[in-house]
């Protein structure tokens, strides 16, 4: 039987209206993304029901993917399916198209949003891990106005976001487009049993200079701690190295030296996660480097 998760359903037509609604409910309303996670969490008693849901998907512009002022901008109502099929994203955020492409099944991707994935703040959300590697930012509107936050600043803990979804609206996400010498890639390992969460997810963005040295690498993995993990030490280690398998393996070892992977019951052992990173992360870096060398867009999954 389904519980009543909300009493009132609002689909405001402007951001201001949405913020006003949230204010009017004074904490008793919350923002609804696609709802594919949130509604289940409420149904299953992991989150409390609310008085009202505020669905921003009918606010003009928030369902668009655009290139604006040197950024690729994704509205909060954009679904995973849209991201996977979008030419701009496939070119400039290949790892994001790949990450969003493996979330749930088609019916979930048709409704679930990247904004919702980020808002959920799971340590291994596939879209989130990819956006973290892309150096993503998040735009938040609230009663005080709006601001852009670096993505890592939104994570407080597992399932805990710094954005108060009862009072603020995550309106947009953005990242820098790829230069002609940049590429990205995503990979995850799943098991055919139990909860459909990755055993381990990994995403890489990097550039190559004229000598084939790695520039501005970003490496994100999860689950590797309470929040999506940006592998800063490994990124520092990789920066400036020649893009070879040996460099990638070295960076991976640095990552492993600096991260506390854990065993999650019925999901993956620590050793397995280490092994998966050791085997697959250098390969993901190689694919990102290959894409950086290749000016023409590479199809996700290729």
């Amino acid at each position, binding site marked *: *039987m*389904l*519980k*009543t*998760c*909300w*009493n*009132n*359903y609002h*689909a405001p037509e402007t951001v201001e209206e949405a913020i006003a609604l949230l204010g009017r409910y004074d904490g008793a309303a919350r923002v*609804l993304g696609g*709802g*594919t996670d949130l*509604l*289940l969490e409420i*149904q*299953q008693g992991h989150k409390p029901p609310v008085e009202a*849901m505020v*669905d921003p*998907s009918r606010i003009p512009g928030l369902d668009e993917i655009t290139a604006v002022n040197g950024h690729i901008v994704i509205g909060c109502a954009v679904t995973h*399916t849209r991201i996977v099929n979008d030419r701009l994203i496939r070119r400039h955020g290949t790892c994001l198209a790949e990450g969003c492409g493996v979330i*749930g*099944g*088609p*019916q*979930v991707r*048709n*409704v679930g949003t990247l904004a919702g994935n980020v808002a959920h703040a799971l340590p291994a959300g596939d879209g989130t891990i990819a956006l973290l590697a892309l150096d993503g930012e998040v735009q938040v509107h609230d009663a005080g106005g709006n601001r852009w936050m670096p993505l890592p600043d939104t994570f407080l803990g597992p399932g805990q976001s710094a954005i108060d979804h009862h009072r603020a609206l995550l309106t947009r996400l953005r990242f820098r487009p790829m230069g002609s010498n940049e590429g990205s890639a995503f990979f995850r*390992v799943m*098991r*055919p*049993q*139990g*909860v*459909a969460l990755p*055993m381990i997810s990994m995403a890489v963005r990097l550039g190559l200079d004229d000598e084939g040295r790695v520039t501005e690498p970003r490496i994100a993995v999860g689950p590797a701690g309470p929040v999506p993990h940006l592998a800063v030490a490994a990124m520092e280690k990789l920066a400036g190295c020649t893009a070879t398998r040996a460099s990638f393996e070295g960076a991976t070892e640095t990552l492993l030296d600096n991260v506390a992977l854990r065993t999650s019951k*019925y999901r*993956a*052992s620590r*050793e*397995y996660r280490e*092994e*998966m990173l050791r*085997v*697959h992360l250098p390969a993901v870096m190689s694919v990102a480097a290959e894409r950086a060398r290749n000016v023409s867009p590479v199809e996700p999954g290729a």
Partner: protein
Amino acid sequence: MSTLRMTVNGRTVELEVPESRYLATVLREDLGLTGTKIGCNEAECGICTVLVDGIPVNSCIFPAFKAQDSSVETIENLSQDGALHPLQQAFLDHGAVQCGICTPGLIMTGKSLIDGKSAAGERVGETDIRAALKDTYCRCTGYASVIRAIRQAAGEDVEPYLPETRAPGRAVGRARPNPDALGKITGRARFTDDYQFPGMLHARTLRANRPHARIRSIDTKAASELPGVHVVLTAADVPGRNLHGLVTIDWPVLCGDKVRYAGDAVAIIAADSEEIAAAALDLVEVDYEDLPAVTGPIEALTDGAPILHEGRPDGNLLKHIKVNKGDIETGFEEAAVVVDRTYRTPGTEHLFLEPECAIGVPAGYDPGVHGGDTDPGAARGERALHAKTTVYVGSQIPYQDRDQVAAALGRDPEDVRIVATLMGGGFGGKEDVAGQIHVALLAEATGRPVKMLYSRQESLLFHPKRHATVIRIRTGARRDGRLTAVQATLYGDGGAYASLSEKVLTRATTHASGPYDIPHVKVDCFAAYTNNAPCGAFRGFGVSQSCFAVESNMDILAAELGMDGVELRRMNALRVGSVTCTGQEMRESAGLEECIDRVDADMRSDDFRWAWEDGRSRWAWGVAVGYKNTGLGGGAPDKATAEVEAWLDDDGEPRAEVRISSAEMGQGLPAVLSACAAEELGLPADSVNVLLGDTDYCPDGGPTTASRQTFISGNAARHAAQALLQRLRSQEGGEDRGFAGLLALARENGTSALERYEYWAPATRPLGTGGDMHFAFGFGAQAALCEVELDTGRVHVRRIVAAHDVGRAINPLTLEGQIEGGIVMCIGYALNEHYIQEQGLPWTTVMARYKMPGIAQTPEIVSHIVEHETSTGPWGAKGVGELPSIPTSAAITNAIFNATGVRVRSLPVDQDELLRAMRSGAGEVQLGWGDSTPIPSISMGEIT
């Protein structure tokens, strides 16, 4: 309430509904479009898929107001002006419809794929189908026919997959869609939750949610006083017998003194709405004294273990089952090689996609009182439609339901009527009583119809599972490969109540030496009560468990002997003249050798290698064989009564109806029964209707279990048709007439054209007394081609080559459906499924924690049909419902060994553990996914 405006199936609708409503609820309840089904309410199974602005979404968890001003399309829109949509036609042609509960979801998801591709000018490939239907689940078909159907609907020229079978008769042996498929592809088919009655109440059950406790007191006052609550019932309110059970009557209808597992029912509440009933559950105060719980069969049988059922002389020992043939010590003395290993199999969940639902209607119910149309029969002074207490339910055993409902009501079985509704999958999981008794009690207590629909989560918690087992098996052979001895000891976790444990584990025991001719066999099986969920029937019925152990040992033995595993099996196969481990001589219909030959020849065509490496994967074949009894056996009376009535329709064409209370759960029984009667009557199968499972109108067909319906009910239908024909021919002047002429003559003579026949299966003997324990066995051989990823340990089944001796293929289309579905279900047993319980509380609380195989896991399936007729079966047919779901898991783990050198001894395969063993060279894996301890060591032949 607010106004919801949508276009639904091309029609504009405006509804005043609460803003909290989900789209599926609006469609089903506010618009009456019950073609959209709900399987989980978790956005997990996909069967509720509808199209919103052309895009497939899970309507169960989609806020209705999110679809404001949108266009919604459901299954009801596909068939226009009586013409089927190409997808519907293709699902029909390919037999891609079994129980039908997921069919609307599969079709709608497929439609969106085809429409999208066609708009883009692209063709639909198999990869696209697998991607689009990734999370739209089906538990019956195994998806192979679904893929073929969608390819056909997308414009490809695809023939239904029909393995070669014997030349057909007029009806028998002909491929024909199950007659009820039409309703299932159009959304018109009604499952229990699709029924509404004026004045109907909704019920919920208070579950114990603790593994073992004494009940000190139950206070229902606050719950009873909640506005909208009509009645709260507890053990004290059960007027008749407060116990049920299929073999041993030990399961409380409502627990009054003690609870023994988390799913135990303590109180039931009927209210104006489900929400109110649920709210009232929270107000029932139960004072429990928790007791120590015992959660494994070995612990349950150790001294000092907490006792579940006080007063049983055997304590927690539910049954010690024994098989003895020859002299086991002599057998091992004769052996040159002995293999001794212990295996473990997991508890698993049927996950039929329709959660249990039952509706009770009180005796004398008049819908007119509640604003409905008054019962027309009753108004005319005839017997009212609901003259008796009536229960609408999709159940595998309608007559036993009737008897059990009557016993709890303290009434005569004749005072109760069970109306079998369509069943959205069963697989053995709808044999025990679920809500049947509860709704009858509530209906009689309130004088109103009462519906009890379990949520998916409640279904997971409550219903009996497949037995988890630990099986030690020692196999001995001479140097030349001849088996000399098999000794096995099994522990089965029966859970809190007996259910069918004794029968299931007897089957595990009698099949624990495999389908082989072995002079010396000794098997001991200990079935134990524990505080886990009860275990009962599940397709394979114990044999799935022992086959995994037997066939793993056979491959180890072959390797130690330096023999080819196929040759070892062929040499020892049961054949005509062999004697089984229970002392039964195979006098006919033992087609195992041919199954092995057919699979072997197919597997070894084109450049055969057992194993090879390709990139970062290793590929290998693995082989296993199996067998399964048809019918109850073991001396149990096994019979079915069918009624056949014939008449001339308005065009003067002869038509007939078979009536029998056997259950259809998607396996295709109506098609089989109509073929059996039609063949005898000389009619096309389409002229014979089948009415199943109404205890007032259909005689007893017995339980739908043990792969018995084709044989038993098929024979009953056949003999009833024969008897009818004979009687009509015996009319004066009847000798030379055709069937239509006979019916015309009967009409002139005022003679009835209805015949009833009680068919008794050949007698069988109890275990331990020798002779025929069963009247027939089906045999099968399967080869699995698996790919193991060297970097992850992930296992993929790429191809299954199968051969099954079914006696005779009555309907090749539905037969192939059983085979493909059985194989994929057993792939799930090997690779996916484990119902995990921790200290008597399920970890598997939601469907999201239980992955069954999806379409992505469907391998290429090559199927051969072997037809060694059995003289007593209808046209030689034996049962097939369970057989295909037995050898697959061992074929897969044997393939994994051939690929990696790692022997998996516990299911389901855990890639984490497998990779660790591959890397370390450990040679074997003892932990299946979800296991937290190594396989226990057990003593042979005695309680450990």
